[in-house]
């Protein structure tokens, strides 16, 4: 299929009112969820996933991408109005957003946050379109050894999502990889930790593990320490972000967008570092640098451009190589698999129309975000007032129905509860859950590519250094490990 044929087929797939409806619905759900303190964008994507099972793959994936993008922007609303970032990526937005809200300029701060988010999102999506196809065509020449080294390299993203302790992150990742070995062995068809139970022969259900790890610990924590939070939201004020404001911040928005794109394309970095780097660069280059931290509109624009610039770019490794850029895209990989699609270079060959439809949908999502975001900003007061004592059991019921609906078995609900308690225990012990999930998702890919390569070579490990691609990934892995070790040594020195 030529480029034009694929693009036309993609357009035919996306040019339905349903596509626009599900995308808009996703953005709306994401903005609302992101705006509710206590519901992260990750949790919102995880809880929406079961509702996509019966949808056409394109509608389901557009819905999830809408939730992702809406969730990242939605996090900026409470960050500005009540100094509580809805998502970690919005932390930098509070630095100038809340002082602006205190001055009675909340509407202006939210307006520029929305404009910056939409522009950055558009730039990020365009970068995805330009780079993903090119990277995928390069990755088409990959065999099992190349994929093994690539996945090994992508496991270094664990360093980025491990939080305070890398060792604890590695424990979580190895446990996730180990959990993924449950089920029938793919080469010999023998039992692995299934003990003859048919429920375990296909392995643990991804959705049950995901929802259990990311949604249930919040509920368990609330049961342990019930607290009703009442936030004092600021008034929006009479002033909205003007064209002059946008023009003044434009350089910072463009710079922040490209910082977001660059950091988002590297697996494991995520939105928060991009937002802070973009903020720091804007401060360094701004003539108003002394106002930063005191309510400078350029600071809000730079932070939001940085974190939204990541959104499209995290899909570059996802679509072209089949590896997640962050936790949310790890969940979206699961969504692709549930709909019978395997992200990676072959997706561009076997489902090129789907890829182009997604590209078009993503471009559309930037404009939908502008519309939905404008309404959400004004409706925030109602969103922030959802009492947690009603929200927590509601989320529990959503988790139960969502998990049951995957395989129509209560066994999955039991797995979800077990994972919820495990996630809660991990949280108490400060062991991060994100590396666990990434290990659980990448585990089968890593093991299969390793065993396929060993079958090809008759057991000779030389196959893993068979060409320039494997060498490149070994070098990148070594480089990533060097930086990780350097960071560890630095923190040890600081402590002693």
């Amino acid at each position, binding site marked *: 299929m030529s480029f034009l044929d694929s693009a036309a087929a993609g357009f035919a797939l996306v040019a339905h009112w349903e596509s626009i409806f599900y995308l808009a619905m996703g953005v709306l759900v994401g903005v609302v969820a992101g705006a509710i303190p206590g519901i992260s964008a990750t949790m919102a994507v995880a809880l929406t996933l079961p*509702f996509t*099972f*019966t949808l056409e793959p394109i509608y389901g994936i557009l819905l999830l991408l809408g939730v992702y993008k809406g969730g990242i922007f939605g996090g900026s609303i409470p960050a500005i109005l009540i100094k509580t970032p809805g998502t970690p990526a919005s932390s930098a937005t509070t630095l100038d957003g809340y002082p602006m809200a205190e001055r009675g300029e909340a509407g202006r701060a939210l307006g520029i946050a929305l404009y910056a988010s939409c522009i950055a999102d558009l730039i990020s999506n365009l970068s995805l379109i330009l780079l993903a196809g090119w990277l995928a065509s390069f990755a088409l020449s990959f065999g099992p050894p190349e994929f093994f080294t690539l996945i090994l390299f992508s496991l270094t993203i664990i360093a980025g999502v491990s939080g305070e*302790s890398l*060792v*604890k992150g*590695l*424990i979580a990742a*190895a*446990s996730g990889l*180990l959990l993924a*070995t449950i089920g029938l*062995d793919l*080469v*010999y068809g*023998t*039992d*692995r*930790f*299934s*003990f003859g139970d048919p429920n375990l022969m296909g392995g643990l259900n991804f959705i049950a593990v995901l929802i259990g790890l990311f949604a249930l610990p919040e*509920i*368990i924590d609330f*049961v*342990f*320490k*019930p607290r*009703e939070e009442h936030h004092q939201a600021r008034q929006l004020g009479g002033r909205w972000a003007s064209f002059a404001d946008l023009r003044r911040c434009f350089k910072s928005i463009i710079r922040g967008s490209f910082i977001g794109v660059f950091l988002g394309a590297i697996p494991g970095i995520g939105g928060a570092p991009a937002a802070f780097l973009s903020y720091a660069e804007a401060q360094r280059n701004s003539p108003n640098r002394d106002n930063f931290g005191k309510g400078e509109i350029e600071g809000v624009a730079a932070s939001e451009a940085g974190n939204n610039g990541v959104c499209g770019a995290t899909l570059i490794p996802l679509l072209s190589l089949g590896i997640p850029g962050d936790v949310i895209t790890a969940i979206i990989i699961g969504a692709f698999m549930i709909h019978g699609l395997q992200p990676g270079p072959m997706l561009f060959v076997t489902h090129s129309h789907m890829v182009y439809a997604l590209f078009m949908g993503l471009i559309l999502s930037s404009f939908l975000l502008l519309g939905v975001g404008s309404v959400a900003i004004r409706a925030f007061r109602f969103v922030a007032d959802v*009492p947690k*004592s*009603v929200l*927590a*059991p*509601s989320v*529990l*019921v*959503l988790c*139960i*129905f969502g998990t*049951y*609906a995957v395989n*129509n078995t*209560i066994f999955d*609900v*039991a797995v979800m*509860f077990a994972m*919820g*308690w495990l996630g809660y225990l991990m949280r108490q*012990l*400060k*062991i991060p859950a994100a590396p666990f999930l990434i290990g659980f998702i990448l585990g089968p890919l890593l*093991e299969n590519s*390793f*065993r396929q390569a*060993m*079958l090809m070579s*008759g*057991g000779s490990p030389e196959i893993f250094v068979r060409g320039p691609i494997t060498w490149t990934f070994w070098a990148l892995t070594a480089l990533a490990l060097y930086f990780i070790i350097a960071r560890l040594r630095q923190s040890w020195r600081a*402590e*002693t």
Partner: protein
Amino acid sequence: MSALRTDFWIGIGVVVLGSALALVAVPEGVVSPRNVRIAVLSPAFWPNILAWVVALMGLILALQSLRRRKASEEPETAAPMPRRGLLRLLALAVGSIAFCAFATKLGLVWASMVAFAVVLLLTGTSYRIAAVAVAILLPLALYAFFAHVAAVPIPQGMFVRLP
């Protein structure tokens, strides 16, 4: 217990867990055919490696916390555990086991309403009317979506059947 001491015991626990997996769970739980000629292709190879990696990381965590404890002068204070909170967690754990045991007999919708009510009772709320309304309407709405739109056979239970 201080954070460093907790980390030490987490490390020891992880070493024990990893070793138990490698020495007991993998030999007992993974069936390896006798005709595997290349050791790395054995179904037990990967789980074995990972179990030992888990144990090794646990050991590193324990040693790291020992090293840090020597360097720091952090006072080792024991934080009081809220007893009521622990009792609520115990009730939630029993509730989640009971849910899995009786959900299909009671029906997923009714069991979810009970689960909602249990969480409400455990946490308390000052929005009683809204909570009762959501407890009834949310499971019914989810049933309507999954059973009638998504064609998922939601268990109806033995007592009250829904259309």
